[in-house]
């Protein structure tokens, strides 16, 4: 029903947002691409000329690259496994009739609103510290030697911190999805004598499959770029240097911009592979 006038008005109203985002996307992206082909080291002589694919090759052949890939994968996969599995169980639990459901929901969701620097530091000091942390107290109580968590089990520590932050998100999304499950279907299955586990596998999980996919994709995009949690806990030491952290160090700490930019391009490609799958699901929902 839109008239020509309202169409052009619409275009004008859309323009600021589109232009801003286009600029925000293209300008830094082109600069990163440009730098990635230059031998650019601001503290050591500046722009030393065209480098071809040298930066790309050096980034993947440097000794820090594969450990960073492994660190990234371990943290992302570990946190995903924990948050999705516990998230499904928690969503089912919170969907049951109980007293004080609203309050329990608030308790469960709260960690998501804690800023990353706070959660990193409070876990590092109050729980994981080998002298004064609560875990150290607990270990002492049972007569065991307290563990230097961030040094001896750095991945486990960071996975626990990140999972604590993202479990609320997974739970909330899965709870929303589970509430749309037809309870009659479950009751019918119960009447037919289907045991709990069977009902779970054949009715609940298939119903949740799309929500689980969405949780995995969105969390992956965010987890690939976690930064503050590592910045305040290990600062990349003890093997916890993820790709994001490695690029950050190359670019800002050692100011090797060419090399870091090539790493940045890899990170962008990686994130886009995940994003394509997510956007496909979003696109399908827009049509519906």
């Amino acid at each position, binding site marked *: 029903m839109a008239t020509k006038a309202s*169409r052009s*008005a619409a275009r004008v*109203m*859309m323009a*600021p*947002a589109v232009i*801003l*985002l286009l600029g925000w996307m293209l*300008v*830094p*992206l082109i*600069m990163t691409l440009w*730098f990635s082909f230059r031998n650019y080291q601001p503290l050591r002589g500046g722009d030393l000329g065209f480098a071809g694919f040298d930066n790309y090759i050096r980034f993947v052949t440097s000794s820090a690259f594969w450990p960073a890939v492994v660190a990234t994968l371990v943290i992302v996969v570990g946190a995903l496994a924990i948050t999705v599995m516990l998230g499904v169980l928690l969503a089912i639990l919170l969907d*049951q*009739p109980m*007293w004080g*459901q609203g309050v329990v*929901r608030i308790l*469960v*969701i*709260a*960690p998501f*609103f*804690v*800023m990353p*620097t*706070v959660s*990193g*530091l409070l*876990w*590092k*000091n*109050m*729980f994981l510290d080998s002298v004064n942390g*609560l875990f150290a*107290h607990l270990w002492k109580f049972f007569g065991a030697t307290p563990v230097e968590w961030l040094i001896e089990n750095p991945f486990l520590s960071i996975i626990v911190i990140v999972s604590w932050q993202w479990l609320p998100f997974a739970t*909330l999304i899965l709870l929303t999805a589970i509430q749309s499950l037809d309870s009659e279907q479950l009751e019918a299955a119960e009447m037919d004598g289907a045991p709990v586990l069977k009902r779970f596998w054949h009715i609940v999980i298939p119903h949740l499959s*799309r929500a689980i996919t*969405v949780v995995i994709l969105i969390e992956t*995009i965010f987890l*690939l*770029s976690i*930064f*503050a949690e590592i*910045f*305040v806990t290990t600062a990349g030491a003890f093997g916890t240097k993820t790709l994001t952290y490695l*690029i*950050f160090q190359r*670019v*800002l700490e050692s100011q090797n911009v060419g090399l870091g*930019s090539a790493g*940045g391009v890899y*990170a*962008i490609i*990686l994130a886009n592979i995940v994003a394509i799958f*997510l*956007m496909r699901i*979003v696109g399908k*929902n*827009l049509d519906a």
Partner: protein
Amino acid sequence: MARAVTQRRKTFNTALAWAVGLVIFFPILWTILTSFKTEGDAIAYPPKFLFFDWTLENYSIVQDRSDYMRYLWNSVIIAGGSTLLGIIVAVPAAWSMAFVPSKRTKDILMWMLSTKMLPAVGVLYPIYLMFIKLGLLDTRTGLVIVLMLINLPIIVWMLYTYFKEIPGEILEAARMDGATLREEILYILTPMAIPGIASTVLLNVILAWNEAFWTLNLTAAKAGPLTAFIASYSSPEGLFYAKLSAASTMAIAPILILGWFSQKQLVRGLTFGAVK
């Protein structure tokens, strides 16, 4: 019989859910409790749970030593300013996409969302360089702009889904009655859109408040918000548990309270409508 069974089941569910909820919430609870302890009590073994000398001194010390109010003010300006600016840019865009859709609307929307997936570290240096050249490094203005841009896709998206729920017939009826575009927006659309806009503001204030990549990398002492303030406690020299807890409690309290009101918006805003 059946009633007794369900009643027992409900009791069991309640106990289990409360136990799990308290375990998940415990780190926050422990931080809040520790913030009221003396430094001695904070690291006491065995740990003191409730029976210790409650004190407020940590809060005043944190304020005196580190000028907490300045960081808080920076957080308020950066989170509030970026959200406000984002809303001003996004409302017209979302309005036109929702009420004057064209063939390309869906593509534009999808493209906007896809910009949200650009990893920040990939464009860290260009932004850093631009900030230096434009004199925006360690300024609130610079962060307001960057956080507005990174959250703009989510703001547009959320507003779009809310505006979509406003029936288009009302607008047509108003047009028939001779309302101008300005009147249409001012008297019909705005009142109906306020709740959606409020929800969008809420979620984006939370996201901007907690943002910890750009705020850590683009600020120093002057414009640093609370995320940077807390990060300064990561050096072991300055570490005192009770004071760290007081600082942390003050940094997260406002957003915890806001967050509890925004559970529903969280699902809508962060899943881009992929889960309903």
